[in-house]
């Protein structure tokens, strides 16, 4: 199950999407979120789903791999869908039993929310799947650099994110090892009621945290040894290049947001 987490993982192919400037992809992800916020009618949902499918196609990342990243949040999706289904009281009643009732409005909203969350996760994981963490963070740094003028510690923030991304696979491996070690001593993580299962997590979390803190300590010393100073100016090994592809992608994004808004206003 641990292996299913694909957040922040990179999937290497040499597609157009992978080659794009990270800044374009970050801005596109933001635009995408705006779109998800705007969409309401069935037509605009159609547009955005078709578009997402197209980007996945040209990124050459297998759909299966992207869907695997959804597994950990499946519970959240189902949970919100159920809440909407039973709690929203709007329109015709289609099903009723005791105090439970499902209305048309509730059903529609439940489906919409589930699709929205799914698309949101798929869209953002496309960003990290098609961009190496270092490139991603240098893109962030470049986009946020105007904030440096008003004293926001952008470089520190970006360094934090890149280290977090760097350690995700290491800590996942470690979690996996701890789970195996505890299972082999007879710990049971699969059965029992939710409270029991949460309690069973403690012998995993404690060693994981202890080791994460030790790693953090070691890493801080190692970074100091390599002359890291968060206040000093740094140069960057990678050069970001914003090309014609990026410009057209961004224009397309803005046009798409406008179109979706138009569809919503009309319908």
């Amino acid at each position: 199950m641990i292996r299913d987490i694909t957040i922040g993982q990179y999937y290497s192919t040499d597609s157009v999407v992978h080659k794009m400037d990270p800044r374009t992809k970050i801005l596109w992800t933001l635009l995408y979120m705006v779109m998800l916020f705007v969409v309401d009618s069935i037509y605009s949902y159609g547009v955005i789903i078709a578009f997402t499918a197209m980007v996945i196609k040209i990124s050459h990342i297998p759909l299966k791999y992207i869907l695997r990243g959804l597994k950990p949040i499946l519970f959240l999706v189902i949970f919100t869908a159920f809440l909407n289904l039973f709690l929203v009281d709007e329109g015709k009643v289609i099903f009723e039993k005791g105090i439970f009732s499902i209305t048309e409005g509730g059903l529609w909203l439940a489906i919409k929310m589930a699709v929205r969350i799914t698309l949101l996760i798929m869209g953002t994981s496309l960003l990290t799947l098609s961009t190496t963490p270092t490139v991603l963070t240098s893109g962030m740094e470049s986009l946020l650099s105007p904030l440096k003028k008003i004293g926001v510690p952008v470089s520190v923030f970006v360094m934090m994110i890149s280290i977090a991304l760097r350690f995700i696979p290491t800590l996942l491996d470690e979690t996996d090892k701890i789970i195996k070690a505890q299972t082999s001593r007879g710990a049971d993580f699969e059965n029992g009621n939710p409270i029991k299962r949460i309690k069973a997590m403690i012998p995993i979390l404690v060693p994981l945290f202890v080791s994460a803190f030790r790693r953090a300590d070691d890493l801080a010393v190692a970074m100091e040894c390599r002359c890291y100073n968060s206040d000093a100016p740094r140069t960057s090994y990678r050069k970001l290049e914003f090309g014609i592809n990026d410009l057209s992608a961004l224009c397309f994004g803005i046009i798409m947001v406008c179109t979706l808004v138009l569809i919503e206003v009309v319908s």
Partner: protein
Amino acid sequence: MNIIETKELSFSYKRENDEKVVLDGLNIDIKEGSFTAIIGHNGSGKSTFAKHINAILLPCGGSITVCGIDTSDEKKLYELRKSAGMVFQNPDNQIVATIVEEDVAFGLENLAIDREEMHRRVEAALKAVNMYEHRKRAPHLLSGGQKQRVAIAGILAMQPRCIVLDEPTAMLDPQGRREVMDTILSLNRENNITIVLITHYMDEAAKADRVIVLDKGKVRFDAPPREVFREEEKLRDLGLSVPDSTALVHALRKKGINIEKETLTPKECAEEILSVTVDIRTRLKR
């Protein structure tokens, strides 16, 4: 010329009530271009000493000078850390970036080196540790020995005069240990970089020009490996051992077989034993 000089270097980690002395008046001078091994029981202060070399820790008493810079001189901190690099035990905890070449560039980015120079140095450093063909890979997918060589390249790119390695092979398999030791030896011989190697493998210490034995924060032995490992009994009292090839010769000597030379490597040991047996055989024939 001495690249590291300590005078009565003392240190203790401040704790509320008990203040244990970890380094107790060390006087250690290390020559530029030399290869020094430091051995000692767990908790004898080896890592603490290493952390003084590039001012991760500052002395409580006495002083330490590295490349002519007093480590407590804050203004020269980065110059100091550039000239004396450090490699640690756990390769996972010292790799910062998610691509090998970008990790090697980390120190250079910190020193604000311009991009062209940076690419040149990263390439040279990766070639020196034999990792150039892996430059685009993710570090977490490399073997332990490869990771450790990437960590060495990251230090090497800063063009240091001295590299301190704190048990760099402790978490590696025999193959990885060999790779790392070969890299260290070639850096010392070909690039004339001063090496300070902390290790608990005696056969690694035997490859150095000089072995320093620390015990409870004090220097107990400080001599070439052959002389240090002659004192097998005393080393065992300190919780240390000697290379297997040396121990074998000592054991034979106890049995009355007269081997004069101290041997450090299996090859030397085999040659000595062979020459003795040849002696015995010729005597028997007569």
